[in-house]
């Protein structure tokens, strides 16, 4: 029969093909190897004290409004004392091996109608973990906090942050009326030791959100201009830190919270720019990631405004790129001086020229420090 005849030919030809295909190694599609993250946004009713305003002043952080906090039932209050670190004092001798990434110079898109942080962003910091206890000489307690806030106080009015001021929001019906990204101001910081927190020393995304929420907006509505930073010390475990991310920023639509995580990479090689920083390797690398997350949060707070076709935000496009660097006497490299201190901070995507499209502004650009 014709059918059987056809079948025999099919079988005769298909069997070698089958053998051939079986002999081809490794043709299966690999599984997505990303590890899971908790997606839950569990709620609780822990109480935090109300906040007080306290703006950055250029290179003169004023912590006088930091005060005793009662964050969670049963925890010890922590008082952050005003202090100041001399520029470049967090130095440890040694040799550096600087990691250098590659800039992504493809265009970045703005989706008309999506918001940026056009009002002054208020920085809220939770220093989670052993920030007051585990730092050994030459560091003292609170050195990271002071170092970080000194950097931020100078950065917000520097040419470095000025790159973000070129980003904007505009309505679809009025695309030429632009409202630019503003500058951050310091609002409040709190130290929260893990051993006094119910979240303990292993954190998920949802617990990071809840730490910020319970600390600063327990009633459930965040400051619309707030950026809530949860900064963890090196012994705190955050799933994915060093393997999937060195920090991140996110958005909770229910509370309107823009929140971010950055960990201390001192013991996480995947997040360390160099073994010896211009100041201290861990703190320096943490600042660079912090700058990355802040510039992304300011320009893409709800994850729908500024990003490129492959999903990269401005900070992503220039991650781990430094531009020209200077070798310090301790062997570490720096690339920028802010407020008299040398830092190693990643570049940011500086907008070039625009091509207008349907609902989208497409911008060329380059990675730069100012």
């Amino acid at each position, binding site marked *: 029969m014709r059918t059987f005849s056809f079948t025999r030919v099919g079988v005769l030809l298909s069997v070698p093909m089958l053998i051939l*295909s079986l002999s*081809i190694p490794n043709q299966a599609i690999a599984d997505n190897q990303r590890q899971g993250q908790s997606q839950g946004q569990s709620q609780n009713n822990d109480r935090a004290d109300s906040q007080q305003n306290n703006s950055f002043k250029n290179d003169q952080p004023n912590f006088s409004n930091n005060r005793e906090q009662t964050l969670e039932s049963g925890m010890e209050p922590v008082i952050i004392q005003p202090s100041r670190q001399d520029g470049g004092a967090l130095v440890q001798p040694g040799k550096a091996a600087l990691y250098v990434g590659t800039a992504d110079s493809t265009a970045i898109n703005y989706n008309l109608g999506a918001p940026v942080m056009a009002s002054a962003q208020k920085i809220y910091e939770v220093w989670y973990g052993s920030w007051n206890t585990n730092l050994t000489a030459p560091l003292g307690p609170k050195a990271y906090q002071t170092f970080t806030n000194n950097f931020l106080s100078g950065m917000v009015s520097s040419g470095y942050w000025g790159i973000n001021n070129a980003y904007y929001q505009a309505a679809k019906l009025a695309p030429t009326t632009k409202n630019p990204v503003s500058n951050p101001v310091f609002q409040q910081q709190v130290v929260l030791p893990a051993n006094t927190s119910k979240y303990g020393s292993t954190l998920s995304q949802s617990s990071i959100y809840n730490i910020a929420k319970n600390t600063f907006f327990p009633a459930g509505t965040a400051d619309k201009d707030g950026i809530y930073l949860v900064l963890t010390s090196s012994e705190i475990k955050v799933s994915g830190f060093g393997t999937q*991310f060195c920090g991140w920023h996110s958005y909770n639509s229910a509370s309107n919270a823009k929140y971010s995580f950055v960990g201390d990479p001192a013991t996480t090689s*995947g997040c360390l720019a160099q073994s010896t920083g211009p100041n201290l390797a861990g703190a320096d690398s943490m600042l660079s990631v912090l700058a990355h997350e802040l510039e992304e949060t300011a320009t*893409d707070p709800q*994850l729908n405004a500024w990003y490129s076709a492959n999903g990269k935000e401005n900070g992503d496009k220039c991650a781990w790129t430094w531009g020209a660097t200077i070798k310090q006497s301790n062997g570490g490299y720096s690339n920028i001086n802010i407020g008299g201190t040398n830092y190693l901070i990643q570049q940011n995507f500086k907008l070039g020229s625009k091509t207008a499209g349907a609902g989208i502004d497409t911008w060329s650009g380059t990675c730069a420090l100012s």
Partner: protein
Amino acid sequence: MKTHGNPLIAVLLATSLFVSFPLTANAAPLIKISESSNLKTVSVSQGSKVQITLHSTYWSSKKVINLKAVGAPISVPIMPGPKAPPGCQFAGTGCGSVTWTFVATKAGSASFEAGRTSCGEALKCTASQQKFKVLFKVK
């Protein structure tokens, strides 16, 4: 019915249609490649269609030898947010995939190389994580 009365014939008929289908539908086999083939050699027959899928939107093609592209690469990003799959909630992770499709036109050797500079949100890439390369032995 007659057919029901002889299930063996029915099975043979169904089998014959199934087995011979590749001959009538598409003679060129589709070879699917992913990260597991990195730095390996894959044997393909001349005229085979090769589909390479890498699971990050940050991959880009760097060097292609003796492979003819079939269309543009297809990027399928997964947008971040609370409804994204685990590990993809954050912007900047590069969640998603890029797929290139080629035809192995020439007998001999062929290769495909891709690179990326980011392996996660604000995350360094080690040297081995930045490169993907697969070699083809085209017969």
